């Protein structure tokens, strides 16, 4: 099985898996890979279970050296990766030989790359998951919520891979405009009519303030006319609108409860895409029904399991 030495890291690359469940009533956020589709594809390439622990690499700035030879798979963003000096395109399983380096430079397409190894990367789960939550000092390689740092050593859980090949075009990258599907709900009826029209007919811009907790959109100010809310649980993808009228899409590391009015929730598939969007990206919100969104989600999951790709909308 492979052993990797972290030779250089900006500290943002981190272990992620499917997330932490059954503990949210304790105030513990769910965590997990932001682009869960890319995570599942990386694991699929090696024949792993879909949620095995991977390295989530935002933007680059990571260099790994193989201490032993072994299999890896790379999906998600194109971070101008180099295997020694050779370009390495995302979307494939490959072998890294003892002494070779793997370097992630800076984003060419997308934002977050995912690196998998047979059986997943080894770490002791904290409250049922390996997912790193930096803000809460929970999970990750050492259990303390730290990202990968220089000198860290990573091991796989298994040696044997059944490497597979993704069909062409299986990886998704943002175009000029990205459409995010939103299931309406919560306090949507208490927003001003003109604000609702603006929300779904104008173009939004992804703000600089975009991280694993939330992604802020800038555009027309949305006006909420309802009463102040009592704090309540916040689902994944919730679009909350604070008093400044600029929506925040709440991601995997969000707070567990909150009191801002919400338009509804962005679908998990759209959240995976949002995870590949950089600040400045143009975004549109589109209303979908819960039933249609669920159907699409189930189709995508079964397609990912069967062929590592889904060519839905």
């Amino acid at each position, binding site marked *: 099985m492979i052993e990797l030495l972290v030779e250089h890291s900006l500290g943002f690359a981190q272990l992620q898996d499917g997330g932490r469940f059954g503990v949210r009533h304790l105030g513990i956020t769910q965590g997990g890979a932001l682009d869960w589709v890319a995570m599942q594809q990386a694991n699929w390439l090696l024949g792993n279970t879909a949620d095995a622990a991977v390295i989530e690499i935002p933007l680059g700035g990571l260099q790994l050296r193989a201490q032993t030879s072994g299999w890896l798979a790379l999906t998600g963003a194109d971070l101008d990766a180099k295997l020694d000096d050779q370009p390495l395109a995302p979307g494939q399983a490959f072998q890294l030989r003892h002494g070779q380096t793997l370097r992630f430079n800076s984003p060419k397409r997308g934002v977050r790359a995912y690196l998998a190894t047979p059986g997943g990367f080894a770490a002791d789960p904290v409250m049922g998951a390996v997912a790193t939550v930096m803000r809460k000092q929970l999970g990750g390689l050492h259990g303390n919520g730290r990202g990968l740092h220089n000198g860290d050593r990573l091991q796989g859980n298994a040696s044997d891979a059944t490497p597979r090949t993704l069909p062409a075009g299986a990886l998704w990258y943002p175009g000029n405009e990205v459409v995010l599907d939103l299931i309406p709900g919560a306090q949507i009826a208490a927003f001003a009519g003109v604000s609702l029209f603006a929300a779904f007919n104008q173009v939004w811009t992804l703000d600089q303030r975009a991280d694993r907790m939330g992604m802020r959109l800038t555009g027309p100010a949305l006006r909420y006319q309802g009463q102040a809310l009592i704090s309540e649980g916040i689902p994944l*993808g919730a679009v909350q609108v604070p008093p400044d009228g600029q929506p925040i899409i709440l991601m995997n590391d969000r707070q567990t409860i909150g009191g801002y009015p919400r338009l509804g*929730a962005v679908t998990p598939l759209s959240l995976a895409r949002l995870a590949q969007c950089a600040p400045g990206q143009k975004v549109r919100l589109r209303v979908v029904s819960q039933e249609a969104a669920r159907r699409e989600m189930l189709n995508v999951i079964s397609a990912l399991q069967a062929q590592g790709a889904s060519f839905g909308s």
Partner: protein
Amino acid sequence: MNLRIESAAIDSLMVRLFDQIDEANMPWLMAAAENLRQAFGAQLIDLVPSYTTLLLHYDLHALSESDAIALIHSSLHNLQPLTNETGTLHAIPVWYHQSVGPELTTIAQRAGLSPEQVIEQHCSRDYPVFTLGFAPGFAYMGLVDEALASARLATPRQRVPKGSVGIAERQTAIYPLTSPGGWNLIGRCPLTLFSAERGSLLQPGDRVRFVSIDHAEFIRLGGDDTVMEASA
């Protein structure tokens, strides 16, 4: 109680039972949580109770939204509040002192009380744990006496030490980990409220009674008496 079920996300429903914060909600919310856990079984992924609601996250592979709604209705039909407190009553030691609770005198002055009277008030009732959120093990409790109610600091502190006991409006809480925060601080608790191994000491539905201790006892119980900077 007035049951409403709202779509919250692709796999989550908001179960709304009340419209106002009230201690009397708790026996109903706890009963609802128990019924929902039993009814959903393995198809329940997470259930997050708050002051007036429960956010229910179910397995979308197993259930459609209408299945889930039907299951909620049937499990909450004829709901009875949990009689007696099923939650644990915790006696939580607090060293109330200006050096670790910079707003102790501010609150006292505003209320026309002495700091000792503020402490007495804060220790005079059992507070139910309404919900856990904000941070792992951060328990929202209340309601404190009207006289102690205090708006959050205009500028939150960058660093509130672990164990700090605070008041915001009529809520009270203990910071389980050092974190940013804007609550008015009146003292510090020496106990560990959250660890990954043992989880959260306080659970929704539990009750807390604060017990005033002196500095020597605080240190004996493992407290860290590092002095706080005054509020911004």
